[in-house]
């Protein structure tokens, strides 16, 4: 039922720092998620080189038959991407909201080490609230 299958956050070197799946469609084990994250990091980088236009900042949307992948890269190199059902709306807005939650609850946590996996309870709590808020209008359809 969930429109979102999974959420990934990768640091500027391509390492996975946060992974959450919503529902069985997005589930994968730790090794696979790590592998996927580095794969995506490399593809994102290569796409910037491949682009025929200058100033390309990498893949923002990948559309496939059974899923869409929306990616947001901050100017500091952190990438947040979400795998969702095809044609799910408002994902860019959601990614920006998640970025703000990251800055408020992860970066401001003094016990969080930069570039390391995220283990911040407040972030998890607020993230679930943000995703829930998004789900309600979608479930109503």
């Amino acid at each position: 039922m969930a429109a979102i299958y999974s959420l990934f956050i990768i640091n500027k070197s391509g390492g996975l720092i946060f992974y959450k799946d919503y529902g069985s469609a997005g589930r994968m084990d730790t090794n696979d998620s790590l592998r996927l994250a580095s794969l995506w990091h490399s593809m994102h980088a290569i796409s910037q080189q491949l682009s025929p236009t200058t100033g390309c900042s990498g893949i923002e949307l990948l559309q496939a038959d059974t899923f869409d992948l929306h990616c947001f890269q901050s100017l500091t190199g952190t990438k947040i991407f979400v795998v969702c059902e095809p044609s799910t709306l408002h994902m860019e807005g959601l990614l920006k909201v998640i970025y703000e939650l990251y800055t408020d609850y992860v970066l401001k946590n003094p016990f969080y080490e930069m570039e390391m996996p995220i283990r911040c309870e407040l972030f998890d709590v607020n993230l679930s609230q943000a995703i829930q808020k998004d789900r309600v209008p979608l479930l109503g359809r």
Partner: protein
Amino acid sequence: MAPLAPKTGDPLFANVERVNAELFTLTYGAIVRQLLADLEEVEEVNKQLDLMGYNIGVRLIDEFLAKSNVSRCVDFKETADIIAKVGFKMFLGVTATVTNWNAEGTTCSLVLEDNPLVDFVELPDTCQGLHYCNILSGVLRGALEMVSMKTEITWVRDMLHGDDAYELQAKLVKQVPEEYPYKDDD
């Protein structure tokens, strides 16, 4: 739905969470005081403040980018303007002015008339070499490094030393864009 990037920080300043200015000033003063007691040497305190500022800056930049919605700056001039008008306003509630550009556009001065960190502060004779607000230079350096700019930030004028304003000199040493290692040595 995303708001346009503001050219001034006022709407942002109104929207972020704020804390009592005196609490902020006094807390900072307590930190500097404690550092002086622990490290005793003024140069060491300067270095430590810069390091603390650096650690703050590397995290602050993401918050700034997330909340202010600014897009990539075209050149260092734009960067300096955004820092002075939007950045300082958002975090300190004051704006700075940008002056003294050199010919290549790599060095400028950020002038602060008003500085919330130094309210109620007087430097005693034993600490005349102290850059009381050195945390600010660290913050700028750390923040800019995370967006691929290596800079050197130094204090030119300091009201606590008798000058008429606070002036920071920001020098862009080099741009270090993220390079992906395609030519790996196997």
